[in-house]
């Protein structure tokens, strides 16, 4: 991706020199990356100490570190992790179980798409969180209402991505399969579905990102537990450094969830990775 000539194209050195430069290069970038992060933390720390306008009320990195250390062996902290993961998992899985088949059929059968797609196009622009109040009214327990909103967050993304994956599949694959004598069922199972898989996983990755955002807000608005509520409770209770611990925890949790999807994708779709 570098659009600049590789720095340091010195005259012809010995073969070892070139290989050393190649290895040296790799960690020059890593060093700069670490430097960038340390500089940010340092500026943050200094900013707080100097009571600069916006940053003044923000807890300094050291305080945050201390708060984090304190929490690491507090069991309640891990309960909130478990609660949040459970909600995301249930909402996300239901969204895939319903969303993928629906997306596949919408992509494959044009008449079905003409009937159902407009409903999607009307409901989709409504931000998932706008559903929270209605969801609380509709579902008996708060837990179900939170999971429903999380489900919505991922559901639309999955359906749209799956559908476009099927429609983007070049029709020469289907034609080749028909010529080779495949029945419609075989075509759906061994051509349409695998062909749409890359788009399905894209939908999942994007959907997972959305579910975590929805979870946090839903837990703040309606929840009694979970990482979102934990962060909000820290604010209400005045334990400001813990707010940032909460934020970082949610960030880490979201990252773990997304990378697990990427791992599953690599295993399920070996043909997409290079040699």
């Amino acid at each position, binding site marked *: 991706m570098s659009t600049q000539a590789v720095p340091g194209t010195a005259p*012809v050195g010995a073969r070892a020199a*070139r290989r050393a430069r190649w290895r040296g290069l790799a960690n020059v970038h890593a060093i700069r990356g670490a430097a960038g992060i340390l500089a940010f933390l340092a500026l943050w720390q200094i900013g707080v100490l100097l009571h600069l306008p916006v940053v003044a009320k923000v807890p300094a990195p050291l305080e945050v570190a201390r708060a984090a250390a304190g929490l690491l062996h507090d069991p309640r902290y891990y309960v909130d992790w478990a609660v949040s993961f459970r909600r995301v998992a249930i909402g996300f899985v239901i969204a895939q179980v319903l969303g993928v088949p629906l997306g596949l059929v919408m992509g494959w059968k044009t008449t079905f798409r003409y009937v159902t797609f407009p409903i999607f196009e009307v409901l989709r622009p409504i931000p998932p969180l706008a559903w929270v109040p209605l969801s609380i009214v509709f579902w008996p327990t708060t837990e179900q209402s939170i999971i429903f909103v999380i489900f919505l967050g991922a559901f639309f993304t999955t359906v749209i991505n799956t559908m476009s994956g099927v429609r983007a599949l070049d029709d020469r694959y289907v034609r080749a399969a028909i010529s080779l004598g495949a029945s419609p069922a075989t075509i759906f199972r061994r051509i349409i579905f695998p062909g749409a898989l890359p788009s399905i996983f894209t939908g999942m990755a994007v959907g997972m990102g959305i579910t975590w955002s929805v979870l946090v807000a839903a837990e703040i608005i309606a929840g009694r537990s979970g990482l979102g509520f934990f962060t909000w409770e820290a604010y209400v209770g005045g334990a400001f450094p813990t707010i940032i611990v909460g934020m970082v925890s949610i960030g880490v949790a979201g990252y773990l969830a997304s990378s697990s999807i990427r791992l599953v994708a690599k295993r399920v779709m070996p043909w997409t990775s290079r040699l």
Partner: protein
Amino acid sequence: MAAALSPAAAPKGAVSLRSVGKVYAAPGGDVVAVEDWTLEIGAGEFVAVVGPSGCGKTTLLNGIAGFDPITSGEIVLDGKRIASAAVPAKPGADRVVVFQNGALFPWKTVVDNVAYGPIVQRRSSRAEALREARTLLARVGLRDVADAYPSRLSSGVQRRVEMVRALINEPKILLLDEPFRALDATSKAVMHEELLKLYDASHTTVFFITHDLDEAIFLADRVVVSTTRPARVKAILRVDLPRPRDFRMTASSDFLALKAQVADVVHQEAEKAFRRGERELA
């Protein structure tokens, strides 16, 4: 009037490649792309280099164009050293490249593309450059596409515009990197005639790399056959077919005689590359 298209222009564009070499430092160990490549190209000469894909032809062209530094030997253009292991090469308007898949700026109209060079080199004002560009386009029969965007043109027409965009800068040498590879046979035949018309009119030196032996013989004064990777000069064929060249020549006995001289050598290299290619994939 663009001097580039008037034959009276002073003869320039003599290039000498003196044992040019290029080694890539790659994670899997060094890759030798070009090794000890020596070739003298006369001013205004049309030279074609033929070799299997991945043999290092493009690396050589990039060295002359100044995109990638060479690691040994030197390249001299009209007596001035433009690249060597010590002298990092810099691209310049004296060596213009036409790329394999085309590089017309899709976001600029045809006339803006052609006028880009003179404008960015601050050689003439924007209005002058646009006027000069329109005249040049009209001269080669492209007046009515001047205000279109490249995406609306066929790949054949896009190549012709790219040629004009290069020649308006009066380059010393035109570097062509398999420019017609993506075209079908008919457009390729038509493009050959267009290129030769432009060449006969401007006599700019041309360095043309390709896989297609027929194309090389039909277009060039001399055909250099390259070995498969690392690229080395394996054979040089002088093509004394009269100019202006005509597509019927490709069926003439002289043409086939010339082709027979190097066909075996080219086929051998292709076999080696084919087997190595598949061995690397195994």
